[in-house]
């Protein structure tokens, strides 16, 4: 099953390499948000764009990996199911989960590229890691793991609905309440009650806290534990549901 997943991941990578366009969504959107927020609101929210950049960047890192996982993974799965490519594989002695795992694995490369680009742009704008390189690497790694775990939500939607429009809508809209309904853009204290309540229970808040802790200093252990826990929950619930739903297609 591992060999099959890798072979299928290799296929997806070759496809991505030949259609680099699919990488663009994942690259451009987070960078766009970073630039927009820093220069539009930076002065108003934090008094200086530089200070705001430091505050915002860890959250944008999470947004990047969540978006990278949401949009393209589900889409490529729907296309494969519609074109009969998956049927072909299913008629072979290939475990059903490796089909999904292969698609999701191939995305890890997309995450890495998106994260590297984001750090590059952040650096050019003046973002500086306030801790150390190891902590920054941990932040990037955790963000990717978290994006991976959440990507199973759209995989499930893809398997259940088999419709490109639905998948791109869900994949595009879902990150907003999840990622923006946190203290990413502005401290939770400034929010109306209902939004603050959501930000408090929102699992992505933990991810952003962890990211801030690792990149800027501050509490790390607690948020990281919560982030891993929630990532595990998403992976277990949506991953299992997606694979089960996929198996039941016969």
């Amino acid at each position, binding site marked *: 099953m591992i*060999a*099959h997943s890798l*072979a*299928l991941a*290799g*296929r997806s990578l*070759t*496809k991505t390499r*030949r*259609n680099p366009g699919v990488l663009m969504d994942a690259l451009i959107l987070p960078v766009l948000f970073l630039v927009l927020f820093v220069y539009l609101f930076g002065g108003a929210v934090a008094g200086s764009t530089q200070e705001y950049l430091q505050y915002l960047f860890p959250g944008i890192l999470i947004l990047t990996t969540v978006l990278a996982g949401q949009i393209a993974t589900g889409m490529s799965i729907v296309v494969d199911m519609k*074109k*009969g*490519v998956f*049927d*072909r*594989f*299913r*008629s*072979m*002695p*290939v475990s059903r989960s490796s089909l999904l795992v292969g698609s999701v694995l191939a995305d890890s490369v997309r995450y890495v590229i998106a994260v590297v680009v984001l750090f590059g742009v952040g650096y050019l704008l003046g973002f500086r890691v306030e801790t150390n390189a190891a902590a920054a690497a941990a932040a990037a790694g955790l963000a990717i793991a978290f994006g991976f775990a959440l990507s199973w939500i759209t995989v499930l939607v893809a398997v259940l609905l088999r419709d490109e429009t639905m998948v791109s809508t869900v994949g595009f809209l879902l990150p907003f309440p999840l990622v923006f309904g946190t203290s990413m853009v502005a401290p939770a204290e400034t929010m109306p009650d209902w939004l603050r309540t959501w930000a408090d229970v929102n699992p992505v808040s933990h991810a952003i806290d962890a990211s801030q802790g690792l990149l800027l200093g501050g509490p790390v252990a607690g948020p990281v534990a919560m982030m891993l826990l929630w990532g595990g929950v998403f992976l277990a619930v949506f991953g299992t549901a997606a694979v089960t739903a996929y198996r039941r297609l*016969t």
Partner: protein
Amino acid sequence: MTYTIDVEGLTKSFGPTTALAGIDLQARPGTVLGVLGPNGAGKTTAIRILATLLRPDGGRAVVDGLDVVRDAVEVRRRVGLTGQYATVDEDLTGTENLVLFGRLLDLPRDEARARARRLLDRFGLAEAAGRRASTYSGGMRRRLDLAASLVGDPSIVFLDEPTTGLDPGKRDEMWRTIRSLADDGTTVLLTTQYLEEADALADEISVIDHGRVIAHDTPAGLKQLVGGQTVVVRPRDPDLTTAAAGIVERSTGHEVDRVRRGVVTAPVADERTFTEIVHELERGGVAVTELALRLPSLDEVFAALTRPEAVPA
């Protein structure tokens, strides 16, 4: 007699639609079974069940002695499937497509490469091997698709309308390939909408309609059943149509079916009658622009099979 493909009373519904209303299909080892039926007859559904992609509602399907539901995993090792629409990956090259299938079948990398090369050669794709499949013509994609289902050296191959959309030259090429498969001992189940294709390839034909088998026979038997072949005569001078019809009637001993837009058609029992018609037309001085012996179309097959008096005496 053991059958390589043995289907009994298979049923499948999609909501209110009955796709299969209990069909039986049998194929002996190393033979080609043609499943002939119009759009929506249930051909694809039957193939998908046999290839373990769909679960039947009822009945039994056994492939190579294995039940397609209970022993699905083992069945997948022995069958190759070429679906109705080409499913090769357009972003990958011909070689990459086939090597991927080899890897998924647990072949070592070298062996996967070697098999890919052999198959590409065999299907006349060696030159295009390094190009992306998106640059292939329809015929090349079909061939690559068929090659992909042979990577695992399956003993049973399912082909769903393998020549639909191919031009006559490419179709003949595909026919030769399919026949060579059976000659090598592979059992082939192929679906088609054309009696001509079933006649050219199949050892036996099952005609299905609305999810039921309405006839099963050898091609010769089936042609007998549906009234054999049809002679088509189109005189150059439309005024001679009646004369031509008279000649055809005398030779065949049957009334002509219809005289429409200057074309005379009538059933003929054997080729000798056809030769006689040719001869008589020449003697009568009736020049023709079209003179052919053709197999009944699917429409005519169905008309004949569903007409009570068509049952042979």
